[in-house]
């Protein structure tokens, strides 16, 4: 058979048709890195894809299309602060991870968390006419609602993995249930977030298994890391008046209702890794009421300094 070339030209048209036309704000990023090369065959062809972005939520809030109730906003603030503080913590690993590949992996997870934080904070701000930036950069320590787990220091790689392990299994159970929230925006943010958090679960579980079953040294470190982190698990599952009201309205779920699944699934990883669930007393907590440990102030100082030195600056 004599090739006519029609097949290759069809393939090319097909691939270009799949490129999203949205170029607002960032210019056209739908062009392959290789420029005018054979874009249909390039492994580095990039497209923005279609997904809910923090900008979409900010726009909906700004135009008055959605407005959270006071309770929903307070709740979104908690979830947003958890993700924001963790993103700031994880970002510190960039250029410091044990391997370049892991550096990028932790950086990706940090950016996922930052995306969730931006969405939740953009939504929460709708109740008080504040932007995500005003909430992130111009609130004081006692106004943050993140749980203590998220502000725990990175420690060594094993401590960070231990923290990721707890965070990802907790967030997965939470976001999975919030996809059915009666608050459409919380449900939409959670639907986007749950897929990303599912990957964070996989990442942390893989490392728990490898560190636990690797060398004597790696096993010692992950055992120690889990003992350091475990006191902060309890606070994640504490109900209060806000969560009770929201659970009744179907907007959210009681944190305590996630505990059984969390224990069962993390327990399965512990069993496979031949580790004991750490038997340590719970830390007092209080993050949801604005009572934080000594760590948060330093995190905020670093995170907020630029915005506070140059209010209103953009670049």
């Amino acid at each position: 058979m004599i090739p006519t070339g029609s097949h290759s030209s069809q393939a090319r048209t097909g691939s270009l048709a799949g490129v999203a036309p949205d170029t607002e704000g960032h210019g056209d990023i739908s062009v392959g890195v290789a420029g005018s090369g054979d874009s249909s065959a390039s492994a580095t062809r990039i497209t923005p894809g279609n997904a809910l972005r923090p900008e979409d939520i900010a726009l909906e809030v700004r135009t008055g299309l959605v407005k959270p109730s006071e309770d929903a906003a307070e709740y979104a603030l908690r979830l947003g602060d958890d993700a924001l503080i963790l993103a700031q913590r994880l970002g510190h690993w960039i250029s410091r991870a044990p391997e370049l590949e892991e550096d990028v992996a932790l950086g990706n997870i940090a950016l996922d968390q930052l995306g969730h934080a931006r969405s939740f904070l953009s939504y929460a701000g709708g109740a008080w006419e504040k932007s995500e930036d005003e909430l992130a950069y111009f609130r004081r320590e006692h106004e943050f609602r993140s749980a203590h787990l998220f502000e725990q220091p990175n420690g060594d790689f094993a401590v960070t993995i231990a923290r990721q392990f707890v965070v990802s299994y907790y967030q997965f159970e939470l976001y999975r249930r919030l996809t059915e929230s009666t608050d459409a925006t919380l449900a939409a943010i959670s639907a986007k977030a749950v897929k990303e958090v599912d990957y964070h679960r996989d990442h942390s579980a893989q490392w728990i298994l490898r560190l636990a079953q690797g060398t004597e040294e790696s096993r010692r470190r992950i055992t120690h890391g889990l003992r350091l982190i475990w006191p902060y698990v309890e606070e994640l599952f504490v109900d209060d008046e806000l969560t009770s009201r929201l659970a009744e309205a179907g907007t959210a779920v009681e944190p305590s209702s996630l505990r059984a699944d969390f224990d069962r699934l993390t327990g399965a990883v512990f069993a496979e890794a031949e580790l004991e669930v750490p038997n340590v007393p719970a830390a007092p907590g209080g993050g949801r009421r604005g009572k934080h440990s000594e760590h948060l102030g330093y995190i905020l100082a670093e995170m907020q300094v630029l915005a506070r030195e140059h209010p209103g600056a953009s670049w």
Partner: protein
Amino acid sequence: MSPHGNPEVPASSAGAVESTAAKVPAGPETSSESSAPRSVWPLWEVFVRSSRGLSHVHAGSLHAPDAAMALRNARDLYTRRNEGVSIWVVPADAIAASDPDAKGSFFESPQGKDYRHATYYTKSEGVKHL
């Protein structure tokens, strides 16, 4: 299975941990001698398929302790901008490559042999279905 993945098992394109695989320590060895070489993860070559119907194309390489982690690292390094729907990873030492020094004998021979191309031939008269 729920619409948002399987709650029982974390999402993963790779199989479960191969617990019989050789164990490699995570991170740098805390070596007692500074001259001792740091243990390095093996090199993997990454192939990404950008969309259904196309072939996997070589995208680059990375280091990973085993195949399961290599797939995850490849996902993090080479599909961050929506580049792929499928990834292959291959141990770099499993690839036999042609010798760059043998370019002359290997690749210059076909040059000038235009009779190997269909366009070299003229259509004969009276031949149907061409």
